[in-house]
């Protein structure tokens, strides 16, 4: 395969916001120059916190609304040049599944009609044929036309609703499914069932996925590659195994550390926990006025003067596996796998230094392996 299914280049999406009630107005830079590829049969996960622009990225790919600038190419066709019926046709091959299964289904329509509608749009005019296809689609997602076809969304559980949403997406015979936090609000047992269903469909139908999530643990089981996003920019992209085992961007490390773990002995010491971060140090700045240079620098334990001046670009780091890119002036060295899940990895250190001390890394009390690696990189960089 020589051509990606979906290619996104320098995508920029901005919204003008009006100042109101003490919030300053301006141009909200939701997505700032994001590029990514999705290959046929591949699952790419975009992970980042609220406000990182991950959902806006998904909508911009769908041209709903079209991005301010940049290019989205799907199967070799640039979506931005399409209008009207041609755009609708192209969009049919990219389907979305949303977070809230109840609000993303029409509450008045029975399940069979919800799933049949994309078939009507695709020109399946024969009623019998449509009914047969609806039956097949519901079966594919583990539902039954006879038992569930006449029910409405409120008569279904959250997991069943999400299955209906998946059946509706499949009705259009898509090549790519964008799942925007599609399993985040489900109970853990149902979440596992839906994830397994999506995985099964990927192999049986040869689908590609763009998974959007705020939790790295949630997408671990489905991802081939992972892209980490912060305030509208990609921080790190790479093969999932590499990114999880050897994260290179400090933000990726923060995301990994935030995942609660079940292993024993993970409970943080009470006195260490007392040192909670102030909100300003802990939360992302406004996307209307993002920090200069690296946007993560205000929260970064490794930030230095250079981070405020120069915007780091996505680049392969030294010794990194192929396809593992990081946008950081002082990335964590691509050394051996640090011992993740070490108790000290959770313990927060003292108030983080802001763009000042190069030695801020070790002070934070991260796992020892990472510490030494961090000190080494900084030392070699400052030469």
């Amino acid at each position, binding site marked *: 395969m020589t051509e990606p299914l979906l290619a996104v280049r320098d995508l920029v999406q901005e919204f003008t916001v009006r100042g109101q009630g003490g919030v300053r107005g301006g141009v909200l830079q939701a997505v700032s120059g994001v590029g990514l590829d999705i290959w046929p049969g591949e699952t790419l996960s975009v992970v980042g916190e609220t406000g990182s622009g991950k959902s806006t990225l998904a909508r911009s790919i769908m041209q709903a609304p079209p991005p301010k600038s940049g290019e989205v190419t799907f199967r070799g066709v640039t979506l931005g040049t399409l209008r009207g019926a041609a755009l609708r046709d192209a969009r049919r091959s990219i389907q979305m599944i949303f977070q809230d299964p109840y609000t993303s289904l029409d509450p008045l329509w029975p399940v069979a009609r919800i799933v049949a509608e994309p078939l009507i749009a695709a020109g399946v005019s024969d009623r019998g044929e449509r009914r047969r296809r609806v039956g097949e689609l519901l079966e594919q997602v583990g539902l039954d036309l006879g038992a569930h076809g006449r029910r409405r969304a409120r008569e279904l559980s959250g997991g069943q609703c999400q299955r209906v949403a998946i059946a509706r997406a499949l009705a259009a015979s898509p090549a790519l499914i964008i799942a925007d936090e599609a399993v985040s609000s489900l109970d853990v*047992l149902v979440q*596992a069932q839906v994830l397994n269903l999506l995985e099964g469909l990927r192999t049986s139908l040869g689908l590609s996925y763009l998974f959007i999530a705020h939790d*790295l*643990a949630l997408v671990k*089981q489905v991802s081939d590659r992972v892209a980490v996003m912060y305030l509208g920019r990609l921080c790190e992209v790479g093969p*999932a195994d590499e990114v999880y085992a050897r994260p290179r961007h400090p933000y990726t490390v923060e995301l990994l550390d935030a995942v609660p*773990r079940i292993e*024993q002995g993970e409970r943080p010491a009470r006195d260490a926990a007392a040192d909670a971060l102030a909100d300003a140090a*802990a939360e992302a700045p406004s996307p209307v006025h993002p920090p200069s240079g690296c946007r993560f620098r205000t929260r970064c334990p490794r930030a230095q003067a250079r981070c405020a001046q120069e915007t780091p670009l996505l680049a392969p780091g030294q010794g990194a596996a192929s396809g593992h890119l990081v946008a950081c002036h002082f990335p964590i060295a691509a050394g051996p796998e640090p011992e993740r899940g070490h108790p000290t990895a959770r313990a927060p250190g003292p108030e983080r230094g802001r763009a000042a001390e190069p030695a801020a890394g070790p002070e934070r009390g991260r796992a020892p392996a990472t510490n030494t690696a961090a000190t080494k990189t900084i030392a070699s960089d400052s030469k």
Partner: protein
Amino acid sequence: MTAVLEVRELSVRYRPRGRVVHAVDSLSYSVGAGRTVAIIGESGSGKTASSRAIMGLLPRSAQVSGSAVLNGIELIGLGARELRRHRGHDVAMIFQDPARSLNPTMRVGPQIAEAIRAHRPISRAAARERAIELFRLVRLSAPEQRYSEYPHQFSGGMRQRVMIAMALSCSPRLLIADEATTALDVTTQAQIMRLLTGLQAQLGMAILMISHDLGLAASFADDVVVMYAGRAVERAPARELFGNVRMPYTSALLGAVPRLDRAAHTPLPVIGGRPPVLSAPPGSAPSAGCPFAARCPRADDRCERERPELAEDEAGHAYACWHPLAGSSHEISGEA
């Protein structure tokens, strides 16, 4: 050590349209000072109904029986006025959605000052001082300025900090956190949990954590109660519970938790089926067998007939199961 909260045989029943729903069935646990107890369960397991029963926040149609003793005072059966005296003072609660818990038309600071003045006879100026002091306690930056801002100017994490400040305004002995971090990002969740554990150490309060997240319970709770279909099915100190799972339901839950060490494209171990319907015709006893039997890979005839009661072993590990797991760590039951 005397318990701050002692819950015994707590039951909550609803009677919608001539049926009976046993939302909570004979739940017992206790929370000691400075300790954290997590109640874990899926939607509809009764975890929230049990905590609201303690706060007296259930609708009138709910029938609450059993006992919940807070600081030596029985809460079940108290009148609205007496309950109000305890709420906020002895026990405070934070909820999942901080945006809906704050008044959007009112500046944030005065909302807290008002809550303080509702419980304590102090002047406006003193209440304002106390509110700013609380903002500092929950690490809100620029507290004086934040005092006169509106909730919409705050992020989700900051709003939850405000809710924590409000909950702590009268130094409660017990804080109930009902899915308090569920709506937040993982990074913000970690910060809020660190803040809560830190404040707990500082103020010595007990925390009752209601959550569906086993990882969170493993990281932050001292004791864990697992609920299924309105009943406690397993209860143990966190370390013992997660290191030595006995109840197949808990094991199934653990198996389904998204983990960082799971290989890509391997199916997650899941169990089929759904929790049983809790409504029954009036007069009929709640179903005879184990409520999990229909979904349990270890179930046999006995499980269908006889209900296992929650029984404690030597390690203080209680479970309600006829065929408990041998107790190896993280054994995953259920078909893939």
